[in-house]
């Protein structure tokens, strides 16, 4: 009775605000069509195999040792990648927040570089460093044909790619632990180690768990790195699903593998969102004081610093080798300086560059606006289905790109929505994959803005739409622009879903880079990557310039 009464009241109130009601309905419709429907299509299609209809396909797949190994590999890789990336990220975050080591700016910068690069660049670097003509294996150590394909190489590439995610999360977590708590523990007689093990670490634990799950999800969804590095000895689910469809033209099997891949991803997502996130401690209260007592002793500080610098060295090596490779005449054989890779790339790829920029430029503002609108509705309004809206929106974070890509080709290759091969399918895909960042940034900002500011506007006679436009939107502008930057970077570097959606008319740089790698032209792939990262850096600088100078809004990048 109570619940339905509340529902009734909410409906009555909504009916008085048609704009609000229409926006809510429109957003639900969009979420249903572009997030839920494709996933449902994947599940439905997996049951439509001709030789093993219904659930039979799953038992057939699970009996295949190759598929079982793929599942095992994906899970083990996800776990290993999550643990090591978090360890490295924690090392960085702890060193930056709890010590006074020099070069913190460099540490920060190096942790952000992998974020603005295509996610499979790590794999290209691993090949340039450890591959057949690798800098380290064949040039320095004289080992030819070092078996870098498989678990080791992939883990290495993934850790370099994903540790920044852990770093940024854990840095926030460690910053939010009030130093006074550590002071208090020490005052009560705890040694530095006891402060760390009894206070700092337990308080950071929910954050660490959250980072572990996020990287587990990302690692499961990773497509580019395993496609390049896994080889046939180390199958993973995302790559197998792709190969089933593009290699064997077996849509039901590919769809079924996607469903198998979805299960651990969504489980991890639900645990992260509804269990771990609830357990976070809020400890910054009262006036923030910084402790003058160093959390670590001098020798430990330099050990931490040394470890960080070693990792910085690896990151520099990883990205340096891409630049070097792009200018080498023939990597590993003729290292002399040459622009031939760039000439080649310009020849084959100028169209892809234009397409990529078009897709990114179109999808970025739309996903930013949609993200802000949903953040506003979720934080400030009450309406039936609010939690569902929040869940579905954030879910697209956890959906592996491969699954989404397959879902889109299944869902939109026939009337009424025939989009296959168009610009629209790429733009829509990017919008609905990357708008959750906008939501997160928007929610974080809105939670800090006192609702009474908006209430004041309503009290003065503004309706919902006017309040949103005149009051809320300007307040959310910084979050909006940081979401824009993120969405742009992701749109420029996305591969896993996009690879299913490109066509002769609309191709993307990332797909072309992957093609170059697969045909063994590492130099061309490197040159292509340098251009891509260059474009991203220029675009970020432009956005920043516009925001800083033209709009005078304090800009904060959030990833």
């Amino acid at each position, binding site marked *: 009775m109570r619940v339905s009464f509340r529902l009734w009241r909410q409906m009555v109130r909504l009916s008085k605000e048609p704009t609000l009601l229409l926006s809510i309905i429109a957003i639900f419709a969009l979420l249903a069509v572009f997030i839920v429907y494709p996933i449902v299509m994947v599940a439905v299609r997996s049951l439509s195999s001709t030789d093993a209809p219904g659930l039979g396909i799953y038992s057939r797949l699970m009996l295949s040792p190759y598929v079982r190994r793929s599942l095992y590999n994906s899970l083990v890789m996800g776990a290993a990648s999550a643990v090591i990336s978090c360890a490295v990220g924690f090392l960085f975050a702890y060193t930056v927040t709890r010590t006074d080591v020099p070069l913190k700016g460099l540490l920060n910068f190096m942790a952000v570089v992998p974020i603005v690069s295509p996610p499979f660049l790590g794999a290209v670097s691993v090949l340039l460093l450890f591959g057949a003509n690798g800098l380290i294996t064949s040039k320095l150590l004289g080992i030819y044909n070092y078996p870098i394909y498989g678990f080791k190489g992939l883990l290495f590439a993934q850790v370099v790619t994903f540790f920044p995610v852990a770093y940024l999360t854990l840095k926030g977590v460690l910053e939010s632990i009030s130093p006074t708590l550590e*002071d*208090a523990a020490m*005052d*009560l007689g705890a040694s530095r180690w006891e402060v760390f093990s009894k206070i700092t670490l*337990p*308080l950071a634990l929910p954050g660490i768990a959250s980072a572990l799950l996020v990287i587990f999800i990302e690692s499961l969804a990773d497509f580019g790195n395993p496609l390049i590095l896994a080889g046939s000895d180390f199958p993973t689910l995302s790559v197998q699903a792709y190969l089933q469809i593009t290699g064997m033209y077996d849509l039901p099997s590919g769809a079924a593998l996607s469903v198998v891949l979805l299960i651990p991803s969504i489980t991890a997502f639900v645990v992260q969102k509804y269990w771990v996130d609830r357990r976070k*401690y*809020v400890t910054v*209260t009262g006036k923030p004081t910084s402790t*003058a007592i160093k959390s670590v002793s001098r020798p430990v500080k330099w050990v931490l610093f040394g470890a960080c610098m070693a990792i910085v060295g690896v990151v520099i090596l990883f990205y340096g080798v891409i630049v070097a490779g792009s200018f080498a005449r023939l990597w590993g054989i003729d290292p002399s300086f040459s622009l031939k890779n760039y000439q080649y790339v310009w020849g084959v790829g100028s169209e892809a560059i234009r397409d990529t920029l078009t897709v990114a430029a179109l999808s970025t503002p739309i996903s930013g606006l949609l993200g802000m609108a949903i953040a506003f509705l979720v934080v400030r309004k009450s309406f039936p289905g609010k939690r569902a809206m929040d869940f579905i929106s954030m879910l697209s974070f956890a959906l592996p790109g491969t699954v989404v890509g397959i879902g889109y080709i299944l869902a939109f290759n026939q009337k009424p929505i025939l989009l296959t091969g168009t610009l629209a399918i790429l733009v829509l895909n990017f919008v609905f994959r990357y708008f959750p960042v906008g939501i997160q940034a928007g929610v974080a900002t809105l939670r800090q803005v006192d609702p009474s500011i908006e209430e004041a506007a309503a009290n003065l006679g503004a309706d919902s739409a006017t309040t949103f436009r005149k009051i809320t939107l300007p307040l959310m502008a910084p979050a909006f622009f940081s979401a824009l930057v993120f969405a742009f970077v992701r749109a420029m570097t996305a591969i896993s879903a996009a690879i299913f959606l490109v066509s002769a008319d609309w191709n993307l740089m990332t797909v072309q880079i992957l093609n170059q790698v697969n045909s063994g032209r590492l130099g061309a792939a490197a040159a292509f990557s340098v251009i891509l990262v260059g474009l991203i850096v220029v675009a970020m600088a432009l956005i920043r310039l516009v925001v800083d100078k033209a709009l005078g809004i304090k800009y904060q990048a959030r990833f």
Partner: protein
Amino acid sequence: MGVTLKNVTKRFRSPDGEISAVVAVDNVSLDIRDGEMVTLLGPSGCGKTTTLRIIAGFELPDAGRVLISGEDVTDRPPNKRDTAMVFQSYAIFPHLSVFENVAFGLRLRKAAQAEVDNRVSKMLDLVGLSDMARRSPDQLSGGQQQRVALARAIVNEPVVLLFDEPLSNLDAKLREQMRLEIRRIQQTLGITSVYVTHDQAEAMSLSDRIVIMNEGSIAQTGTPSEIYNRPVNRFVAEFVGRANFIDATVAGGAGGGMVIDVHGHRAEIPAASCRYPAGTRVELVVRPETVKLFRSDCGCASPVCFAGRVTRVVYMGSVAEYDVDVEGMSLLAVVAGPAEHGLFSVGEEVQVGFAVNVAHPLAVR
């Protein structure tokens, strides 16, 4: 014994290692006796918190020594000192229950479970939280968190208890109640305590002695009544309570006392506060509650009286505040029980008098 600070000086450094021009603590020397409760009182930025943190070991002084129970602890880290601090933000560990928060120090010392149980429950009894032991800190109110912080500090039986503005996050009623409770517990245990606050009422009601600090130095040390009745300078007089400053001249001595001239009126001050030769220009510190107002047709019952005119009236129930203009100088009077004598009104001509024997002369620099 107790705590001794010897010529302690501290300057802060910027993150780049540059030494700040401002001296946070400037050559402070202080003796705190065993079992004494001393308050460091001063405006923000006066160095009181830094001094406390130096005693705790969170800050290292640039110069000077810190002695606890006669032992030099200047170079010891906080975990090696017998001090316990109650923080302004309480600093309750959010991942531990109330019981485990209080037991934290005992567990570090590897105390036996029976001893931990025994001592923690005794402490929780003392602060009145026995039935909250299993609660998580986020289920506690601010005042309860404050009690946990206090119990956690004293369960380790430290030699010195340090309070860093512990009540500033509580509302006024609770603050007064906690003030009394802290004093009760401190006196029950007879534990040497240093208490930092910027609230003079707190300092007055809690302390055996008050140390007034200003710009890194000690302005005055004394019992609450010494500080209030015989401030050493204008800063102390203005910081603790409210004060009128009235120009006067020392006219000479008479017997044990001293005669001063206040705008042509002569009056005698008892010997205790006389330190100035004849002819010295002084300022009299006259507390507003010692200023009396009389209706102009009733005559004046004070030895020193002026004619004045009321310029402002603030009625506050138990007292009324008046600004009175006397020969171009504005005097503040706080009159108790305004209902009894009837309110004066703005513009009313009055006689203003004050008891010179409780006025305190300060030399004019």
